[in-house]
């Protein structure tokens, strides 16, 4: 192997895997957002464990986790308020007041622990309800309202604390249960941690999987939209603040049991610290974004940091200052992240790779190659000029009526001697692409953006499938079918269909070619079991599908691999794929049967020589994509029409051209029927047809599949 080959192989290997794409996929995941704060938390714990003596001991861990859990509960309350688009500044005051209440109930009134717990939580709900009532029903601003209740509750606490704290401190009431919730453990885990875990899991499920949680997020994200969607904002906000109060109550209960005193500084600074905590955890102050887990991660960071700094001997003022600085950074990052996350994903989404198609086949008119340019399509008869927009595929039924999908999402039907009668056959709601008739004359359609659908002769639409099995080892959930493109139906009713790419939508489909990585799929839907299964993965835009005449294999066009492939569905090679034509002069689109036992293959775009050079320079393509506006990108030669005639072994025989795409640019499909060849184009304003001199004039496409049948009385 010489140096040049080595270098080339190194280049191929370098572009085969793309860490950038992994990052893009990762950051598109919502669970990736707390990844950074989580890492910070782990690093902080490790740091203090290594620097502070006796930090990493069971005793210290228990003691820390107790205080942390109380703070964590308060942070959950704050987090919920933020997610609903508001804020709860009164958490600290509520915490103090409820702490005093719990202590009084236990020490002064001598109530048993469970009763104390119920009273405290109920009182927490009541305190939160005050906030909720004002914010939810009277529409006051969350910030001002909770600021007022912060002052009011703190005032009440100060008054009562003066009156009762002495008595509480003197009290000798004791109970095992009270002692356990304060200082007990189960399996070395403090009680409060267990409670936090249970509540956290319940809260997470409620928030992410329940109606109430979704409503909360919806209200936080956009109040107006939530109202338009019929969500009762009043009730959602009211319950949010009630729950916030209850969270404080649970925290306060454990705090009371642990310390058995109500110092005047109780809950001081909690509002500020918990706000910093949830924001650093990644809960947006703008609302609508966050989770329980993020609140706890953020609380962990703030808590570990403050506590660790104290343990290292810094003064309290320093910790406060550090917390303040962290809050400031968190707000800044929040704003920037919110603004730029989508852009960051978008910027790193397209990752061109090294592609070498091989030498470009000769297309010169006098070359004698099957791909030699001619003008056999230039004289095509036009059908429905300016009455049809983008007939990606065309098909004829038994009666010779012509169907085409359009970019408006319609299926149009042309009938009459010269197809002068145009009618709207059906509206699909997506972008209809590939068409095929099944045994019962239902029109089966690949609708891009929706999936595989059928239309009965009486025009009722039914769904066949819109999901396939999710692939393993892929970050992005690719079970949903996005760009279903073309299909064909086997005699046993199985529908083989293609999905162009799982990474781009139809508006951006040429970008998939620019990238050159395959993400398309060949999928099979079995109506007998109503199941969908992916047969072939990682196809560079899987496009046209055609059952071979012997029904032993499926031919599929790999558009941006510039090749035609075969997948064996029966026979000795069942389940394997092979290359049929490896180096086409253009990008193959739909493929259909011809009357002579061969096939027709449309080339939607031609390979310009410089495009081939660009495909060998992924770095250039990357910079082009990043620096230039979409319209300025180099793309495949779409301004051309070319159909290749294949023999029974699917090898090229000759071709039909409309050079320059004068009337049939982006020619995507052709269908032979009764001696004519009908032409469709993804971006065209017409359907074309040419007379085939040596074709069987009695050959009908759907009869070739399903046999002759007396035509049923039409509607």
């Amino acid at each position, binding site marked *: 192997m010489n140096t040049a080959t080595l270098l080339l192989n190194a280049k191929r290997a370098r572009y085969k895997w793309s860490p950038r794409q992994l990052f893009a996929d990762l950051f598109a995941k919502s669970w990736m957002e707390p990844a950074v704060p989580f890492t910070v938390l782990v690093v902080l714990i490790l740091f203090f464990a290594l620097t502070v003596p006796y930090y990493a001991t069971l005793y210290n861990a228990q003691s820390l986790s107790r205080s942390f859990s109380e703070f964590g509960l308060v942070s959950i309350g704050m987090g919920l308020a933020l997610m609903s688009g508001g804020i709860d500044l009164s958490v600290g005051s509520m915490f103090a007041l409820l702490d005093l209440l719990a202590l009084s109930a236990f020490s002064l009134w001598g109530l048993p622990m469970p009763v104390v717990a119920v009273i405290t939580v109920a009182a927490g709900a009541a305190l939160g309800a005050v906030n909720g009532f004002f914010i939810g029903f009277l529409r006051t601003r969350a910030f001002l309202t909770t600021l007022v209740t912060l002052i009011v509750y703190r005032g009440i606490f100060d008054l009562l604390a003066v009156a009762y704290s002495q008595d509480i401190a003197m009290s000798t009431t004791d109970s095992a249960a009270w002692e356990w919730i304060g200082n007990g453990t189960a399996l070395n885990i403090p009680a409060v941690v267990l409670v936090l875990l249970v509540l956290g899991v319940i809260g997470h499920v409620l928030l992410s999987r329940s109606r109430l949680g979704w409503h909360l997020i919806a209200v936080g994200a956009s109040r107006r939209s939530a109202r338009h969607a019929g969500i009762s904002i009043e009730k959602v906000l009211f319950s949010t603040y009630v729950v916030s109060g209850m969270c404080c109550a649970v925290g306060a209960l454990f705090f009371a049991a642990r310390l058995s005193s109500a110092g005047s500084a109780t809950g001081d600074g909690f509002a500020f610290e918990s706000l910093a905590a949830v924001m650093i955890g990644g809960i947006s102050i703008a609302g609508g974004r966050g989770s329980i887990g993020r609140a706890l991660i953020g609380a962990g960071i703030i808590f570990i940091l403050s506590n660790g700094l104290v343990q290292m001997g810094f003064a309290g003022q320093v910790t406060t200052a550090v917390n303040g600085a962290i809050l400031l950074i968190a707000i800044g990052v929040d704003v920037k992240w919110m603004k730029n996350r989508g852009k960051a994903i978008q910027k790193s989404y397209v990752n061109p790779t090294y592609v070498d198609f091989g030498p470009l086949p000769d*297309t010169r008119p006098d070359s004698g190659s099957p791909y030699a*340019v001619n003008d056999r399509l230039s004289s095509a008869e036009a059908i429905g000029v*300016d009455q049809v*927009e*983008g007939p990606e595929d065309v098909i004829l039924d038994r009666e010779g009526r012509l169907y085409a999908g359009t970019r408006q999402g319609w299926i149009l039907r042309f009938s009459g001697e010269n197809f002068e009668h145009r009618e709207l056959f059906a509206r699909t709601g997506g972008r209809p692409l590939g068409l095929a008739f099944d045994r019962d004359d239902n029109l089966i359609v690949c609708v891009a953006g929706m999936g595989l659908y059928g239309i009965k002769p009486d025009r009722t639409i039914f769904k066949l499938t819109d999901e396939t099995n999710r692939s393993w080892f892929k970050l992005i959930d690719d079970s949903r079918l996005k760009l279903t493109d073309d299909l064909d139906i086997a005699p046993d009713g199985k529908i083989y269909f293609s999905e162009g790419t799982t990474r781009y939508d139809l508006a951006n489909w*040429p970008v998939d070619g620019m990238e050159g990585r395959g993400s398309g799929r060949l999928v099979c839907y079995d109506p007998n079991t109503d199941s969908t299964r992916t047969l072939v993965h990682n196809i560079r835009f899987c496009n046209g599908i055609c059952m071979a005449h012997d029904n032993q294999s499926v031919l599929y066009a790999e558009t941006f691999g510039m090749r035609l492939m075969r997948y064996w569905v029966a026979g000795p090679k069942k389940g394997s794929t092979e290359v049929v034509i490896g180096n086409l002069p*253009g990008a193959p689109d739909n493929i259909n049967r011809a009357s002579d036992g061969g096939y027709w293959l449309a080339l939607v775009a*031609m390979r*310009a*020589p*410089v*495009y081939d*050079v*660009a495909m*060998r*320079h992924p*770095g*250039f393509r990357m*910079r*082009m994509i990043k*620096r*230039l*506006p*979409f*319209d*300025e*990108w*180099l*793309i*495949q*030669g*779409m*301004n*051309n029409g*070319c159909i290749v005639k294949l023999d029974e072994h699917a090898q090229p025989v000759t071709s039909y051209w409309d*050079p*320059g*795409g004068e*009337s049939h*640019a*982006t020619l995507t499909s052709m269908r032979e029927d009764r001696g004519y060849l009908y032409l469709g184009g993804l*971006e*065209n*304003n*017409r359907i074309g047809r040419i007379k085939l001199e040596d074709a069987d004039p009695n050959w009908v496409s759907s009869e070739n599949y399903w046999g002759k049948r007396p035509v049923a009385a039409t509607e």
Partner: protein
Amino acid sequence: MAAAKELIRDLLSGDSRKHPIPSMDGPLSPNNRLETLQHLDADLDAPCDLCPGDGGSLLVAQDRRIERISPDGSEQPAVIARFEARVSALTRLQDGTLVVAVNGAGMKHIDTDGRVIAEIEAANGAALRSVTAIAEDPKRGGVYFTVGSVHHDAEDWIWDLMECNRAGLLGYWSLEAHSADILATGLAFPSGLVVEDNGSSLLMTESWTHSIARYHLTGGSRPAARDVVVDNMPGYPGHLARAADGGYWLAVFAPRTHLVELILREKAFKREMMRALEPELWIRPALSSTGSHLEPLQMGAMKKLGIRKPWAPPRSYGLVMRLDGNAEVVDSLHSRVDGHNHGITAAREIGDTLYVVSKGNHRILVQSLGRGE
């Protein structure tokens, strides 16, 4: 490595370099005027430049010859001179003789019957292989001329652009003394030249820097000072000619596109493209586009519903600018992407008619200026 360089370049340079191509608005707002003009009914294969002849006729430089054409079609076209290579520029002096630039062979001073009076192939040791513009100095009895590049012939301009050369010259050929001087070197393909204000200054276009510069002449052999008067034009400025009422006609022979600007910086890609492919197949500005499937296509130029958008990224374009005395654009004539009159290599006002040479479409377009009445 290229990415790092790009980053540094982005960090160091201002906005004007990041968004290099200005949009065409104001007096440059696109129109269809060049497309709707009448054209001379003459059999032209590759017209490049023209100048007035005797008796209301036109002298047209095309391919390797100069033809006399009567604009009204009253006389048959007649070849008055043939040369060994393509003619790239010609001008008519006050005494009726012509100075002609021939690719790879310098300049020739000929009379109207094609007899060579004088010729020059080199100046100060530099071969004048691609003279792109000639302008007479009425006072000194000589001509100023520009050489596009010392590396390539004028018709191979695309190589010079792609190599990012700055190898153009400005010179003066004294017809009396039979000697020539080089006045300036290192120019970015100068290709248009006029003498202003009776010989006190020169106005010169530089294609690869998309600019127009003014040289102040003091009578000595060297120009005194150089000012860039127009910078960053949206196309590659070429032929410059005086308008009767002051001001100038500027022929912009090709458009700039973001993709080409990018290619110019992409050295590895550019090198392979130039090595492996014929120039017609490159990503490049061109005088005309064939629409062949082998030519590169840009996303916005994709045909939709049978229509090629006129505002699509152009490969070729037709543009004539009307400049005022300060070289500010005041008006423009366009043939857009969906048109054909592209690749304007000359626009010259003769009498009260503007003749526009569309080399891309092999036509001479005629615009009556109606100033005579």
